[in-house]
C-alpha cells in the first residue's frame, strides 16, 4: 500500500489509517457546503448544541486534544484558563502557517473550510467565546477564497450567525487576513496584528492571551488543525478519540515530510506511535530516501526544531519523547537531508529565514540573528575562519545562554541535551535563528571546517629577506 494521492489536494497522501481531519479530502468538491452536509458536516455542531457548554468543554478536556500549532498545549485546559466572570472572550484561530517545512493548515483551509468553521463554532460554544476571528496568512489566496465562500454559505444556511440552528447560541466568525510576516504566527503578535498594529509579540507575563488578549480581553488562540479535530470528536466522543494514538498524544496528527525522500507528502498519521523510520522509509509513507541515498539528518518539527540524526529514527512522533531526545514535535514538519546535502548551506537557509523574520523588538534576536546569518554566509562562501565558528557559538550564547538542546550521536559520542533552552528574547524567533547553526555545528563541525579559508602563515622571523624578494 503506497498511499493515495489526489490532484485536487497537492501533497496530501491518504493511507489505510484513521482519518479524523482529512476524511473529506477524497472528494474533489470537499470545500462546498453540499459535500460537507452529505458527509456528516455540522453533525458535530448539532451534537455539541444538544449538550450544555460545560459538558462539551469537559468532553474536549477528556480527549486531551493537544494544540497542533507548535507548543502542544491541551486545548480544553487552555480554554479553562480565562479569568472567571470576565467578558467578552474571543477566539482567534491561527491560520498563519509559515514555519519552515509546515504544510497542513493550508490544506485544511482549502480542502475543508466547513470542518474548520464547525470546529470554531464548537470551541466558542464550549468556552463561551463571543466572537471568532479566523486569521489566515496573507499569501494564501485560495485558502482565503475557500473560507470566505464557505462562511457565506454557512451564514446563509443558518450554521453561523444569529441563533444557530434555532438555538440561543449566536456567533459571528470573521475572516481576517494577514499581509506577510512570519512572526505574526506567534499568538501575542497575532493579536497585535488583529488590532491593526505592527505584528510584534507582547511580553508574557503579563500578556498571556487567555487573560489579557485581543482588546485586553481574555482570548483563546488555537491552531487551525486543533479546531479541525473538534467536529469528529463531538460526533464520536472522547473515548473513541483517545482510542487512537498514544496515551500522552491521542488522536491523529498532520505531518508534512519534505526534502530528500522518494515521496514527499502530507500524511495524517496516528499520533504518538508512528516512528520517524515509518515516516521516512515506510511504503505507505515516504518510501525511503531519494535515489536510495543515505539519510544524513532531519529536522523533526519545523525549522525551529533542533536536528535529528539517523540515531533517532526509531523515536515515535510524540512530543515528550522528542523533547527528551533534544528537539520538538513543533508544527509537524519533517525536513529530510540525504548524504549529498551541504550542511552549512542548509543551516543558512533556515538562519536566514529567522534573521529576516525578526520583528526587531529584542536586541539579541535583531542583532544576533543578523550576525549569525552574516557569519554563516561568509563560512558558506568559503571565506570563514576558525574564529568565525567560535563566534557563531558566542552569538548563540547571547540569545540562549547555557546548554542548548541537541540530539545524541553514537558517531560523535554525544549524549542528548533535552528541550527546552533558556532564552533572552521575547519569542522563539531569536533562538530559532540559532537552532540550525547549533545543530549543524554540533553534529557536522567537520563540514564547516572543510569550508574555512586555508591560509598558511609563514612566521616572519623564519623568512630571510632574499626569500621574500624571491617570492615577489
Amino acid at each position, binding site marked *: 500500500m503506497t498511499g493515495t494521492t489526489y490532484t485536487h489536494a497537492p501533497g496530501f497522501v491518504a493511507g489505510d489509517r484513521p482519518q479524523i481531519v482529512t476524511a473529506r479530502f477524497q472528494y474533489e468538491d470537499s470545500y462546498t457546503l453540499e459535500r460537507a452536509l452529505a458527509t456528516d458536516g455540522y453533525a458535530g455542531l448539532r451534537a455539541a448544541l444538544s449538550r450544555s457548554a460545560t459538558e462539551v468543554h469537559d468532553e474536549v478536556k477528556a480527549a486531551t486534544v493537544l494544540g497542533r500549532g507548535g507548543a502542544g498545549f491541551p486545548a480544553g485546559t487552555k480554554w479553562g484558563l480565562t479569568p472567571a466572570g470576565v467578558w*467578552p472572550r474571543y477566539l482567534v484561530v491561527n491560520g498563519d502557517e509559515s514555519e*519552515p517545512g509546515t*504544510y497542513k493548515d493550508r490544506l485544511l483551509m482549502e480542502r475543508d473550510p466547513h470542518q474548520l468553521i464547525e470546529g470554531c463554532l464548537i470551541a466558542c460554544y464550549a468556552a463561551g467565546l463571543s466572537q471568532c476571528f479566523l486569521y489566515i496568512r496573507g499569501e494564501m*489566496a485560495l485558502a482565503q477564497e475557500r473560507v*470566505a465562500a464557505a462562511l457565506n454559505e454557512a451564514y446563509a444556511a443558518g450554521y453561523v*450567525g444569529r441563533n444557530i440552528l434555532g438555538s440561543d447560541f449566536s456567533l459571528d466568525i470573521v475572516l481576517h487576513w494577514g499581509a506577510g510576516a512570519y512572526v505574526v504566527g506567534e499568538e501575542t503578535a497575532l493579536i497585535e496584528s488583529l488590532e491593526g498594529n*505592527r505584528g510584534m509579540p507582547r511580553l508574557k507575563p503579563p500578556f498571556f492571551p487567555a487573560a489579557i488578549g485581543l482588546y485586553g*480581553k481574555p482570548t483563546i488562540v488555537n491552531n487551525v488543525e486543533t479546531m479541525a479535530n473538534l467536529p469528529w470528536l463531538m460526533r464520536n466522543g472522547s473515548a473513541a478519540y483517545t482510542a487512537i494514538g498514544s496515551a500522552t498524544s491521542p488522536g491523529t496528527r498532520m505531518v508534512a515530510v519534505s526534502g530528500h525522500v522518494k515521496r514527499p507528502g502530507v500524511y495524517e498519521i496516528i499520533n504518538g506511535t508512528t516512528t520517524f523510520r515509518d515516516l521516512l522509509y515506510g511504503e505507505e509513507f515516504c518510501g525511503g530516501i531519494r535515489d536510495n541515498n543515505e539519510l544524513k539528518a532531519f529536522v523533526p518539527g519545523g525549522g525551529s526544531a533542533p536536528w535529528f540524526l539517523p540515531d533517532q529514527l526509531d523515536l515515535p512522533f510524540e512530543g515528550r519523547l522528542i523533547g527528551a531526545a533534544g528537539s520538538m514535535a513543533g508544527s509537524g514538519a519533517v525536513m529530510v537531508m540525504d548524504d549529498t546535502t551541504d550542511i552549512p548551506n542548509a543551516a543558512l537557509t533556515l538562519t536566514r529565514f529567522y534573521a529576516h523574520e525578526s520583528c526587531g523588538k529584542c536586541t539579541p534576536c535583531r542583532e544576533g540573528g543578523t550576525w549569525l546569518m552574516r557569519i554563516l554566509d561568509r563560512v558558506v562562501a568559503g571565506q570563514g575562519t576558525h574564529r568565525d565558528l567560535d563566534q557563531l557559538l558566542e552569538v548563540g550564547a547571547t540569545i540562549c545562554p547555557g546548554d542548548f538542546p541537541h540530539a545524541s550521536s553514537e558517531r560523535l559520542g554525544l549524549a542528548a541535551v533535552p528541550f527546552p533552552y533558556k532564552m533572552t528574547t521575547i519569542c522563539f524567533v531569536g533562538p530559532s535563528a540559532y537552532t540550525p547553526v547549533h545543530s549543524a555545528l554540533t553534529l557536522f563541525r567537520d563540514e564547516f571546517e572543510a569550508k574555512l579559508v586555508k591560509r598558511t602563515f609563514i612566521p616572519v622571523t623564519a623568512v630571510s629577506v632574499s626569500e621574500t624578494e624571491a617570492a615577489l
Partner: protein
Amino acid sequence: MSRLTEDNVRVAHEIISRYPRPRSATIPLLHLAQQQDGYVTNDAIRHIGELVGATSAEVLGTATFYEMFKFEPVGKYLVNICRTMSCALMGGEELMHHAEHRLGIKAGSTTPDGMFTLEHAECQAACTEAPTLQVNYRYRFRVTPETFDALIDDLAAGRLDSEIPAHGTVARIRQHIPAERGVGAVPPEDATNAPSWMTVAEAPK
C-alpha cells in the same frame, strides 16, 4: 495617488463593521487599497487613517511591517520564488538563477515593460511540493526551468488572466455577512455580560 473610490469606501465600511474596534480593519483596508491601485499610495494611507480613526503615521507604521504591501508600483505579476530549506534542498536557488536569466533581471527588480517583478520569498507552506513559487499569491509546484518558462510565456500572452488577477488582488471572494443573519460586532466595553448560552454561572476561581 488616489484615495479609495466610492465603491471601495462602501466595502471598507462593511469590513470595519465586522470588528469590535475599527482599527482592526487596517490590514484588510490596506489590501483593498493595494487592490485598487496595485500598490499602497500615500493618499490611501491617509484615507485609511480617517476611516479607522488612526493617524497616517500609525497606518504607515502598520503597513511597512508587512511584506505584501508595496509603496511603489510593481509588475503586473509578482513572482515569488521560495528559498527556505525544503525548497533550497530541492533546487530553489537554481530555479531563481534560471528565473533571473529568463526575465533578464535580478531578484528584487521589475522588467522594463512593467510585467514581472521577481522576488525571493520565504517558506510558502507547500514544502512537500518543492521547489515552489507564487505568482500574485497563486501557487506553482515542483517548478522546473521548463515549466517556469512556459508559465512566463502564458502570463505574457494573457492565457492565465482568468486564474491570476493583476498584482494587488489577493482573494477574489469576500466574506459578506447578511444583516439579518449577523450578530454584529460590539465594542468590548459594551459586551461585559456572559453570552446567552452560558447558562451556568462561573464560580470565581
